[in-house]
């Protein structure tokens, strides 16, 4: 039981997708200017990534490995993800127009978030079982969301700071992300206790 907890915590903090695994940076940089949008993007990603991990595990274990088609992993995973994104959009559009209004614009962006493909691929190479895959996906997505929200908090404040002119915008955001990842290095070594 605790080992599952460590999978989640490890994915959220110690091996944070953004700061340590360096995945999902485009939306991390692009959708973090406002807290609101950061929350929306985080929620959408969490849902899709968790689903993607489950689905890709099933495909890998039951379709690809038995047929020795591992080389189709990239393709089948990304296509699955695209399908999940589309279906998610359909479902929430039907069931909750409100949620759709909140998440709608983020869903299409998720297909090009490389964490959404990277985490399922990592699941394979870390040889996670089904539950671990799900939890790893969920934990990573929570880690992504956490990073995104914290970053948005800082950026909202930074917007008013007297940053030297050439550093305004993306440049200082990069430096901030660097310092955040430096801070997250403090968690290094915690995962050896699992």
């Amino acid at each position, binding site marked *: 039981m605790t080992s599952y907890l460590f999978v989640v915590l490890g994915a959220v903090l110690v091996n944070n997708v953004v700061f340590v695994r360096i995945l999902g940076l485009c939306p991390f940089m*692009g*959708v973090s*200017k*406002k807290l609101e*949008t950061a929350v929306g993007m985080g929620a959408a990603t969490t849902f899709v990534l968790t689903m993607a991990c489950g689905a890709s595990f099933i495909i890998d274990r039951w*379709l*690809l490995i038995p*047929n020795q*088609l591992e080389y*189709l992993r990239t*393709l*089948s995973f990304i*296509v*699955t993800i*695209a*399908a999940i994104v*589309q*279906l998610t*959009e*359909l479902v929430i*559009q039907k069931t909750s127009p409100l949620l759709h209004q909140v998440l709608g614009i983020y869903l299409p962006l998720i297909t090009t978030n490389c964490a959404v493909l990277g985490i399922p691929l990592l699941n394979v190479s870390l040889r996670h079982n089904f539950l671990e895959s799900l939890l790893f996906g969920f934990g990573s997505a929570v880690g992504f969301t956490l990073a995104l929200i914290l970053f948005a908090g800082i950026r909202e404040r930074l917007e008013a700071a007297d940053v030297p002119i050439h550093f305004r*915008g*993306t440049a200082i955001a990069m430096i901030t992300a660097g310092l955040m990842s430096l801070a997250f290095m403090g968690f290094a070594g915690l995962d050896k206790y699992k």
Partner: protein
Amino acid sequence: MLEAILVMAFGALVLGAALGYAAVRFRVEGDPLVEKIDAILPQTQCGQCGFPGCKPYAQAIAKGEADINCCPPGGEEGIHKLADLLGREFKSLSAEHGVEKPKAVAVIDEQVCIGCTLCIQACPVDAIVGAAKQMHTVVSAQCTGCELCVAPCPVDCIHMEPIEETVDTWKWKYPVVPIRQVA
């Protein structure tokens, strides 16, 4: 090889059908974005942006056909708002579309006006009153300062007057930062 193709073909069939269905079934009608953009534009309707009015410009922005820095009356602030809304980077006002000017209203020199009604036809917000061959006046509360009436006047009797500051319209100025003066 064969199983590869079979597996993928199966996936493709399902997905293709689903997507085709979805794309047709759930096409989003109308574009709420245009309304949001239009709400930011100053509604001066001056056409300096190169479009016949604010709404067409809003549509062009929403379609990605126009840049966000083409509206001089909206000024830097308007551009900031648009950049925020659209998640784009801020750009300073494009010089070819004009410069930000202090707000002004049109004033008709009633001595000179010949009542030709050309200005009435030009004014996009019906801010000019007067019938043919009678003196025309600008209702300054309704004038947006677009200057469209200035050019058509055959006797050059319309000029723009900056809005004067009164006790009612006066605003506190941005505090000067004395530290720069020390430098």
